């Protein structure tokens, strides 16, 4: 895998540029680099991860040993996504291989160049008897989902996630669903002007800097107090120009929209007249090249589609509140998101966010980084998915933890066996309470 990405780096960059217009820096950061890092980590840690772990045993079981031994599930299905078509296919693939499984990888057909690149080149590097790449659209997915898998790992939308889980239920196949949701960012008043500039960069980077907002952990919308809104919008506008120039649609650093369907879906979000009226920055599009300019909206109606569905694109609604603490109720009254970002130095506010909201992850004063931490589980909760991976969690996601208890034939404890009587009941009660002294006394006939 390491060789695969090293040998083919330029070709991968080209394929990503073709499918989503990704710049090599973004492509390295979010795709190639992620894969290389995972492969290196697995290589250095897999022996440690594979080793059986000892479990504690109470004395009453003596002599015995307890351990947990990871084993492969068997044959697994990985369904990748189109927005990070390389890393969201290969990262789970690395995990499945390190856990000892055979794998079928189904890359997304919405990123066809990457899909055929993987189909053509993976067999050159990996054993094609145990690792297969199958390309195709909905009909191929349906056929794959009818088969019996030992595990399915799916990255994609909630709608398809339901279909995958329903199909998995037919065979009692465990699943990991990496979905999405509306990941909010909160900004309070506790930051000084210097920090504000950094905050603006991090917000712009997290919205438009990752596949132009087409990322499961991109900032979906922003919550800020009314009195800071216009300064924030100015600062964001300035930062956008700094990153993407005067004409962002021409910028090579901005991804395009993946296809006509999504392009239309995003334009439709703006069609609602009240939503259209709330656009305060951007809004222009290039239909031929499928680019949408970074667009900011201020207070679109809360019941509009742009505020009820995951946006997955370069439109950023800003919702103003009287008091930033209201953001907690705002978020917790909505489906649990994959990520929450909070820019604040108020320790009390941080604690409230952590205890009164639920999300896959929370990041304070930055964005997207949780994806790069191998020691943190990456996954959703509620509608944003279940199961997790990255680091050792990847290995665990594709392993069954088999419990093993080993005993000898000696000694024998007579009270384990029928016929039952009150002595044996007493013995069992004492054994459960780990009352060793009581047990000894009972056995010696000194306890009634």
């Amino acid at each position, binding site marked *: 895998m390491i060789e695969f990405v090293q040998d083919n780096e330029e070709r991968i960059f080209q394929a990503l540029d073709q499918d989503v217009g990704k710049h090599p820096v973004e492509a390295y950061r979010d795709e190639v680099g992620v894969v290389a890092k995972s492969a290196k980590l697995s290589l250095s840690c897999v022996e440690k991860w594979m080793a059986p772990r000892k479990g504690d045993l109470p004395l009453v079981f003596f002599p015995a040993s307890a351990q947990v031994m990871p084993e492969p599930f068997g044959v697994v299905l990985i369904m990748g996504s189109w927005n990070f078509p390389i890393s969201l296919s290969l990262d789970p693939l690395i995990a499945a291989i390190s856990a000892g499984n055979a794998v079928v990888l189904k890359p997304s057909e919405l990123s066809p160049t990457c899909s055929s690149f993987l189909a053509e080149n993976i067999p050159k590097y990996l054993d094609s008897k145990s690792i297969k790449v199958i390309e195709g659209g909905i009909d191929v997915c349906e056929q794959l989902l009818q088969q019996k898998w030992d595990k399915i790992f799916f990255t994609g939308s909630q709608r398809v996630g339901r279909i995958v889980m329903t199909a998995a239920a037919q065979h009692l196949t465990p699943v990991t669903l990496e979905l999405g949701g509306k990941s909010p960012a909160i900004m309070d008043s506790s930051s000084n002007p210097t920090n504000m500039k950094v905050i603006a960069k991090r917000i712009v980077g997290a919205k438009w800097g990752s596949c132009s907002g087409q990322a499961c952990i991109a900032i979906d919308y922003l919550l800020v107090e009314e009195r800071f809104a216009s300064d924030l919008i100015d600062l964001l506008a300035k930062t956008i120009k700094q990153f993407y120039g005067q004409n962002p649609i021409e910028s090579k650093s901005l991804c395009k929209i993946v296809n006509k369907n999504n392009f239309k879906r995003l334009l439709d979000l703006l069609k609602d007249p009240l939503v259209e009226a709330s656009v305060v920055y951007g809004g222009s599009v290039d239909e031929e090249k499928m680019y949408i300019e970074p667009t900011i909206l201020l207070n679109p109606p809360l019941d509009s589609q742009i505020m009820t569905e995951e946006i997955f694109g370069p439109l950023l609604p800003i919702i103003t509140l009287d008091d930033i603490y209201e953001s907690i109720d705002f978020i917790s009254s909505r489906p649990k998101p994959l990520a929450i970002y909070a820019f604040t130095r108020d320790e009390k506010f941080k604690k409230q966010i952590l205890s009164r909201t639920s999300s896959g992850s929370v990041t304070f004063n930055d964005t997207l980084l949780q994806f790069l931490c191998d020691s*943190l589980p990456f996954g959703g909760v509620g509608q944003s998915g279940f199961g997790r991976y990255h680091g050792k969690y990847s290995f665990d996601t594709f392993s069954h933890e088999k419990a093993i208890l080993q005993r000898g034939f000696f000694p024998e404890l007579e009270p384990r066996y029928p016929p039952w009587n009150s002595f044996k009941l007493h013995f069992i009660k004492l054994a459960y309470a780990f009352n060793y002294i009581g047990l000894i006394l009972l056995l010696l006939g000194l306890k009634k």
Partner: protein
Amino acid sequence: MVKNSCTLAIKELKHWMMPEKAKTSLTTFPSSAEIMSEPLGAVLIISAWNYPFLLSMDPLVAAIAAGNAMVLKPSELAPASSSLLAKLLPKYLDCCSIKVVEGAVSETCALLEQKWDKIFYTGHCRIQIFYTLAPLQEAVGIWEYVGLGGNGRVGRIVMAAAAKYLTPVVLELGGKSPVVVDSDIDIQVATRRIIVGKWGCNNGQACISPDYIITTKDCAEKLVDSLKKELEAFYGKNPLESKDLSRIVNSDHYARLTNLLDEDKVSGKIVYGGERNEANLRIAPTILLGVPQNSLIMKEEIFGPLLPILTVSKIEDSFDIINSGTKPLAAYLFTNNKKLKQQFLMSVSAGGVVINDTALHLAVHSLPFGGVGESGMGSYHGKFSFDAFTHKKAVVYRSFVGDASVRYPPYTRGKLRLMRALITGNVWTILRALLGLS
């Protein structure tokens, strides 16, 4: 067992609840990270009839320890236990957040139509409720499941219902837990342990009861003799009268089990037992020798007091027999041969494995208890219980110090170089890149 779960939770909960610090690398420097456990929300626990108290209370204790609200739906096939739980739990537990809902298929349907944050299901599917499954299947819109054979049918329905709301599930199901008996062992001890795991556990009506035995042709006779001797020592000459044996739960199961015994290919293979008393729903401990592998008794989970023994020429052949079926909840091996033990551990997949004993792993809190493949998904007991009902939320703390411009557009080849180095997290690589040397 429930008392122990409570004691353990009370003792360890503070420790379990504490956020776990996570290491961060140079890639995200400066930062700190932790993993915080939080409740999932409102959970549904559906329990089984064979251990109606334990399989309701143990998950309940776990869900409470993890901070959830819950609805418990005890099995209607154990009605006295179900109504006792419904009557007593509200007297001891906060009934705003912990409710018991009694009922059968239609109540279960109604519950499964709701949106839960987790569903914990223990159970099996038995043929006698096949015709009553139709309303359940209709309610969750999965007509194509009607007619599916085998275990875990209700497990499938629960998971499909959960799929509507993307609800994660734990399914504690079952399967055919095999016992492989090698030669050169203390056969009396092995026999007693097999008996207590089989008939001593609700008369074979337990998810981890030994389902069938595989041994070599040479050992089979000795094993049968030993089983007969010890069974008599435990249950007397007239086991149908023994107070130490549970009865069969109801007439549907009684009919199912006698059906297994009466099948033509099997009825002549009984070497011990076989007595029944329909009025009292009792079946004596029954051993069968040499049943064909395509008989009903070898195709489905027995869940009763019938123990088939299969024979092989060499003991290693037993692994293929086990692996030709679906992965069981438990697998047992009695041996003194280290090599055989290793082979067994490496080649037989099961929820849990016990060497030289049966069923005990259930009581070890440091071991996860759950199935794999058709025997289920997810696990619990000990801290695994707490984990089953919590969400592990990743938290990253960052400051504004050290903002690397390499992160931001406009992108350049120079940034690419530095990005490469940063992602490795290696300090020398990063230094070289910063100095423009890579």
